[in-house]
């Protein structure tokens, strides 16, 4: 595969690569900025597909193994696309002590998938987190980037039902 010159636009014509190039230039294409660049890439594209990792490896002049190694080492990087909505359940100690396991079971039962998976219709991703740091409000979940405090199994399921309802209302 021929190397991709940085100055040229990405052959796909996807403008999002220009945004990514901006971050890469800001870090002077330095290899030690890999994590920063991957953060930016995931922010722009939503997840890190193989083609994107290749692009980053070329741009930072790093072996692909190093880029792939870093992308898979850190939990924050997703190599698969996420659903339209994400439900991040905190499984930190405080939430655990206050019954996060019950919420986990209720939500898994409702969605028919396990945590770490996405529903087949790409609507809901269930993610578990180690601690979101809102322990005073345990048990908590981060529901589409908003912290939902003092959840119960019922209120957690209700949140997900809301998403599923809005999906039905808007025909694809």
């Amino acid at each position: 595969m021929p190397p991709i010159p940085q100055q040229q636009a990405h052959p796909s014509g996807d403008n999002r690569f220009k945004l990514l190039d901006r971050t890469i230039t800001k870090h002077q294409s330095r290899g030690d900025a890999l994590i920063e660049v991957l953060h930016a890439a995931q922010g722009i594209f939503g997840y890190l597909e193989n083609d994107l990792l290749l692009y980053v490896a070329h741009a930072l002049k790093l072996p692909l193994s190093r880029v792939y190694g870093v992308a898979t080492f850190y939990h924050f990087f997703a190599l698969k696309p996420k659903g339209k909505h994400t439900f991040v359940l905190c499984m930190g100690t405080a939430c655990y002590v206050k019954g996060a396991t019950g919420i986990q079971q209720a939500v898994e039962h409702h969605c028919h998938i396990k945590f770490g998976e996405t529903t087949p219709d790409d609507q809901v991703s269930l993610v578990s987190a180690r601690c979101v740091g809102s322990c005073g409000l345990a048990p908590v979940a981060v529901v589409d980037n908003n912290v939902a405090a003092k959840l119960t199994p019922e209120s957690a399921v209700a949140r997900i039902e809301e998403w599923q309802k809005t999906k039905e209302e808007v025909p694809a």
Partner: protein
Amino acid sequence: MTVEDLKELAEQEQERQRQFTHRIFYCSAAGCASCGSSGVRNALLKALKEKGIEKEVSAVGTGCMGLCGEGPLVRIAPDGTMYQHVDEAVAQKIVDRHILNGEKVSENLVDTSSPFFSSQFKIVLENCGSIDSENINEYIAAEGYASLAKVVTEMAPGEVIDEIRKSGLRGRGGAGYPTGLKWGIVRKAASEQKYVVCNADEGDPGAFMDRSVLEGDPHRVLEGMAIAGYSVGANQGYIYVRAEYPLAIERLRLAIKHAEKQGLLGNRIFESGFNFRIDLRIGAGAFVCGEETALIRSIEGKRGRPRPRPPYPAERGLWGSPTLINNVETFANIAPIIRRGSAWFAGIGTPKSAGTKVFALAGKIRNTGLIEVPMGIPLRRIIFDIGGGTPEGTEFKAAQTGGPSGGCIPTEHLDLPVDYESLTTVGSFMGSGGLIVMDSTSKMVEVAKYFMDFCVDESCGKCIPCRVGTVQLYNLLDKISRGEGTVDDLALLQELGTMVKETSLCGLGQGAPNPIFSTLRFFRQEYESLLRPVEGFVASPNAQKTTTNA
């Protein structure tokens, strides 16, 4: 900026604040923000505008006020009244009744004379909840950056380190290494290039102290780092912060920008020859990156895997240069020590553990939230006076400190003073400050299993004792919790745990068996009650009742 400029700026800001008859502080930290403090802000601003008093009364978003479980919180200055569970309607009432008529809104009043407030002693959190964290002038008005000015213009680097050494400050990340000593080592290391790193990768589940400091008073950390940079001879600092804390990242970015604009970071700080820049590095969700050598790798853009020490980062750290790594809370203590003197700081707490410690209280406790107490305070006072004890109808069982490397402390050891040494005598450790209270509904075998599951997941896989040992320990715990374990499995658990503890490379593996050890030590009967009865096995006396039932 010169020292005079700083003083003038502080006076101007104090004068501006004096113009207001009242200042309404609403908590805008992550805890209260998630239960609707932005709505409170809008309601306050709207109400002030409607009454036409927006020039006399200001509404200010602040950092954490402590009582996170009762949010959103609002505090009124100058009288210090505090309100809890504030929603838009209550915000309207506060303006109508408290501000305009001087009559308190009794329904939402917080009793600020309760032990939750009166037993605390605030150094690190002194500004949290009383300044606008996004406004550098408010920090300057609260004597901010005065310590940096003093250090850069009046003190030699060696003097600063002496001062920190005399204060008795020890690392707040958990291990408690004397801060002054560490600074001295980095200072002595011969190198052109040195770095200062702030460890804000607060990964322990149940801990949110560092996040609260970064959200509520970010400049305090920047100032501490700059003083450290001056003392050890570094011109570049990094803050390694978790990606899970978006608000803290946003506020830090803003704080760095403001400080650079004012000339408090950057080149020729206070017109001296001292240059210091700070950059942010965002973590990506690996618990092991809280370990210093792994953190360094991660800043270098690599997989965060620890390496054997020595050489310590103080000798060979970031890109091979001497690197000073301290925790957020440690840096947050620096400016007050310089401002008020080491003798003042050394007088707080115990002789061996000086100063205060911030704890995050969570779990089965009435007052959940953020507290700061002098070192040496008995655990009982933290849990029952400040925390208000367990909620009605439940009984205290154990307090867990130190995260996944810590231990559970049972009732009989509650009178233990909280300091670095005492906690290790009961098999726990200080850790970064998460304190989780468990009641009788928590089953200790499950708790140990929960922490082991965490370690299995977070083990980086570099050394075998941790990578394989944690999985085996988890399987043993699982077997016991399903009622299929035998007395031999208990012995094996102990033996394997000791092996993992003694042979793992870094703190993650070395600490991983601690929850098992401490639960085995204090709650052995819970394990024994789950064992499959084997011929000839005699349970310990206090377990007999439960075994016969099972």
